[in-house]
């Protein structure tokens, strides 16, 4: 064997390296590697393709027909054709939200720990129905309670029916304009419905703090109404403490001292009676000696609205053919006392605007589900129920329930007593939450049952746009299943599924011209208002809430596309913003971007960032609602503060709801 020379070895090695390089180059490996490098650095996700189809549906938030664009079986876009509400556009995000509840969840950690484990539907339903059976057997049917979300039509009606069949009257709705105005209609018009303004035919609209284009009522309808008002030159007079978008869109903005809307309403009523001869329509008000306290000079002092403006509004209101006065302060979250709604209703009665086109109607729930069959246990339970006046009243003063249903509601976040409720929920033996995504209230639940989103729900007109995902069920179906597994309750639920019932629950508008003014309710409210407005000298500022379009009460903050739309003048750099007039800031030693905390008699908020704007009256601070969730998906949690925690908690004796509109605060 020849000895390998050093030179030959180097040649061989060199040849091998050169050959390897040429081989590698020609093999295409470097190009592949480069391709991988590009892909790795760019890391693009490619949505899967498929054929395009459109399915029809209805947005139950606004009742608008929608068309859903699908690629293969994926819903990618909701088309509304210049109608609808912003919620329509968020439906896809709700449908595919990664934090949707996929299976029934059972609590595994301590109460309020937020730790849950998935269980089978059968196990959850059995556990819940066993609890109902146990309570009924112990004559404790009346200790079952339920909270319904606002405007939760079908499932809400079924929850009410379930409790009636079990034997409890403790069903409370999250407060909204409908529930508050229904109490006013009950007292003055002996009606079971909510107030419904005929904006489509009005020619003069006097709004007492109702931010009509910022989430108030049905947004799709209000947008249509806006277009008609613009086309027909309808006059909108907006009475509001803040320079909101609605105030700027109005024909006239009447700035009013915070919380004094009812005084202004009575001041206008005084003028209608004394100067414009409208007293005959409501003699009770004219006869009431207290009305003399609301002469224009006095009201001007109370509200900050000049006497001449009050006279001008009264003259225009009396002179318009189809005027209507609108109550219900706020946007999606309305905070008005029954007394204040009645004060505004007086104007409609004085000018004969009750139950006539362009005036105010009553919207009655049209429930054709039939009578509930109550057995002995249910009748005993109903007799033992000491019903609270409303949700806040029940949280604060109600007896502790043994079983609580939370149907698509979030009172831990939306009630001023949220913290008290959270504390109380820890002691309730069983809490059942029915919802699509975990929220602040569900944190304290024992069971979370997943319900369908709007796109997955069948409508009265036909099929759903998208097949149900995961093992979620329609809220009404969940209630049906629970009801059917309890003997004595099942008889009231003969339906096989929610689609059978969709057409049985609706609302109907009725003209109702009767109006009996309950002076006592008005007087009690005025006393309460006076006390609240006076306040102590150490709390020199008034806190007035506002809502950001899309965010509303905060339920939609869990959607990233909604978060992306929150403006920097409301929430920036992870800090919630408090708006105040430069004069206020000067007096209080604050400046643009400085950090302040708000302190009321109920507590103190976390730090807020100051933004100076003259849209806010001197002496007033404005804070957006909907932020400060403790549990509401990774997108909404721990963002900002919830001002409701420090807001006024005086419970309105008629509606049982806290009137939190006006709160005395100071900076700290």
């Amino acid at each position, binding site marked *: 064997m020849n000895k390998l020379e050093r030179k030959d070895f180097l040649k061989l090695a060199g040849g091998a390296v050169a050959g390897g390089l040429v081989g590698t180059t020609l093999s295409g490996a470097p190009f592949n590697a480069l391709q991988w490098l590009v892909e790795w650095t760019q890391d693009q996700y*490619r949505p899967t393709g498929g054929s395009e189809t459109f399915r029809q549906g209805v947005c139950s938030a606004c009742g608008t027909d929608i068309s859903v664009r699908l690629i293969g079986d994926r819903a990618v876009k909701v088309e509304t054709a*210049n109608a609808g509400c*912003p919620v329509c556009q968020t439906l896809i995000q709700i449908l595919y939200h990664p934090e949707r509840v996929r299976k029934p969840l059972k609590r595994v950690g301590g109460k309020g720990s937020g730790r849950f484990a998935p269980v089978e539907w059968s196990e959850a339903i059995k556990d819940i129905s066993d609890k109902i059976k146990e309570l009924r057997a112990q004559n404790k049917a009346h200790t079952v309670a339920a909270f319904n979300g606002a405007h939760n039509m079908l499932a809400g009606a079924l929850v009410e029916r379930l409790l009636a069949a079990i034997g409890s009257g403790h069903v409370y709705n999250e407060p909204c304009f409908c529930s508050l105005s229904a109490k006013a209609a009950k007292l003055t018009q002996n009606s079971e419905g909510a107030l419904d303004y005929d904006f489509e035919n009005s020619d003069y609209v006097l709004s007492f703090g109702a931010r009509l284009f910022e989430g108030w009522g049905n947004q799709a309808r209000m*947008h249509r109404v806006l277009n008609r008002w613009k086309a027909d030159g309808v006059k909108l007079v907006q009475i509001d403490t803040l320079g909101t978008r609605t105030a*700027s869109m109005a024909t006239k903005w009447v700035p009013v001292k915070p919380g004094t809307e009812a005084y202004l309403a009575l001041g206008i009523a005084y003028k209608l009676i004394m100067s414009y001869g409208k007293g005959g329509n409501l003699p009770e008000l004219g006869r009431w000696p207290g009305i003399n306290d609301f002469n224009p000079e006095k009201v001007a002092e109370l509200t900050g609205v000049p006497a001449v403006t009050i006279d001008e509004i009264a003259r225009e209101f009396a002179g318009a053919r189809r005027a209507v006065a609108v109550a219900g302060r706020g946007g999606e979250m309305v905070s008005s006392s029954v007394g204040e709604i009645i004060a505004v209703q007086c104007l409609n009665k004085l000018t004969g605007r009750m139950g006539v086109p362009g005036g105010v109607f009553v919207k009655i729930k049209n429930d054709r589900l039939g009578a509930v069959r109550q057995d002995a246990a249910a009748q005993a339970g109903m007799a033992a129920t000491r019903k609270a006046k409303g949700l806040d009243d029940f949280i604060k003063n109600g007896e502790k329930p043994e079983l609580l249903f939370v149907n698509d509601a979030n009172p831990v976040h939306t009630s001023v007593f949220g913290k008290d409720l959270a504390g109380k929920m820890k002691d309730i033996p069983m809490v059942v939450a029915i919802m699509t995504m975990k929220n602040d209230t569900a944190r304290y639940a024992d069971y979370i049952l997943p319900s369908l989103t709007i796109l997955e729900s069948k409508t009265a007109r036909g099929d759903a746009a998208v097949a149900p995902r995961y093992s979620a069920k329609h809220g009404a179906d969940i209630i049906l299943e629970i009801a059917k597994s309890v003997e004595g309750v099942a008889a009231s639920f003969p339906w096989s599924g929610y689609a059978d019932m969709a057409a049985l629950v609706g609302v109907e508008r009725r003209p109702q011209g009767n109006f009996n003014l309950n002076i006592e309710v008005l007087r009690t409210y005025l006393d309460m208002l006076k006390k609240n407005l006076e306040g102590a000298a150490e709390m020199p500022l008034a806190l007035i809430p506002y809502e950001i*379009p899309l965010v509303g009460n905060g339920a939609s903050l869990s959607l990233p596309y909604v978060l992306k*739309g929150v403006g920097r003048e409301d929430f920036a*750099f*992870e800090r919630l913003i408090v708006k105040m007039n430069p004069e206020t800031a000067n007096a209080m030693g604050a400046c643009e971007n400085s950090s302040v905390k708000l302190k009321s008699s109920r507590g103190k908020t976390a730090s807020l960032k100051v933004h100076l704007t003259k849209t806010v009256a001197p002496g007033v601070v404005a804070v957006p609602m909907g932020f400060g969730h403790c549990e509401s998906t990774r997108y909404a949690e721990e963002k900002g503060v919830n001002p409701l925690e420090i807001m006024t908690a005086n419970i309105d004796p008629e509606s049982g709801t806290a009137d939190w509109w006006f709160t005395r605060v100071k900076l700290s």
Partner: protein
Amino acid sequence: MMNVRWGMSIDLDKCTGCGACQISCMQENNMPIFDEDSDIPKRVTFLDLMKVTNDFEGGKKYGEVQTAFIPKMCMQCSGNDPKNPHPPCVTVCPVVATDVGDDGIVSQIWSRCIGCRYCQAACPYEARVFNWWKPRYEGDFKQGLNSDVSVASRGTVVKCTFCSHIWKRERDRAIAGGETDINKVTYTPACVSACPTGAIVFGDLNNPNSPVYETRLKNDPRAVRMVHSIDQQPENERARRMRIKDYPNPKVYYLSSQKWLRDIISGFQNS
């Protein structure tokens, strides 16, 4: 040959700031999703719904100050001569990732972009955004992605294209239906079709029957274009200035009856 020049007009008197246009745009164009989407420096959107007030006007008191919303997207600039368009961003792009079509739409191909951000600096309207982070679509959010729009990768500039992918979709549909005249193809961008008050309208700037006929818009006392104060100059002064400099000449018109709002949009007093 395309004779159509797509343009938009936004009636701010009808805009309630509801945000439907913004969400519709995000859904249509596969906006990236981050845990911290409320964080403004990280935010990637094509359509910015700006809330403005006239606080800046000296002497305005509480009770006189107003609030308005301005939806702002890519203004689809054309430069001084719309027949030979020179948008400021297209001129500076070294890799032709952004270009202007014969229908006047300023396009952007995400995957061609090298992330130099020249265009972002050149844009007079801050209409372009840079993807600093990799877009994440947690879990099933991927299911809602539109397959007509590619997902932008980290390190690229993205922007509104007047939803030109919808035009392409409509064009293909029209051709399949036997249509041979490309100028007859019409479409509606996502923000326009979502606007519940009809504040945003879209169409052909060259067509007298279109709701956005440019000659009519230019004579509308309510109309104003964003940061385009040359519009308020007399004819001969405008011509003189345009000989010296290329102006953006945007194809989005704002309509407002409020002078203060027109002033802040145009950047020119007494507009």
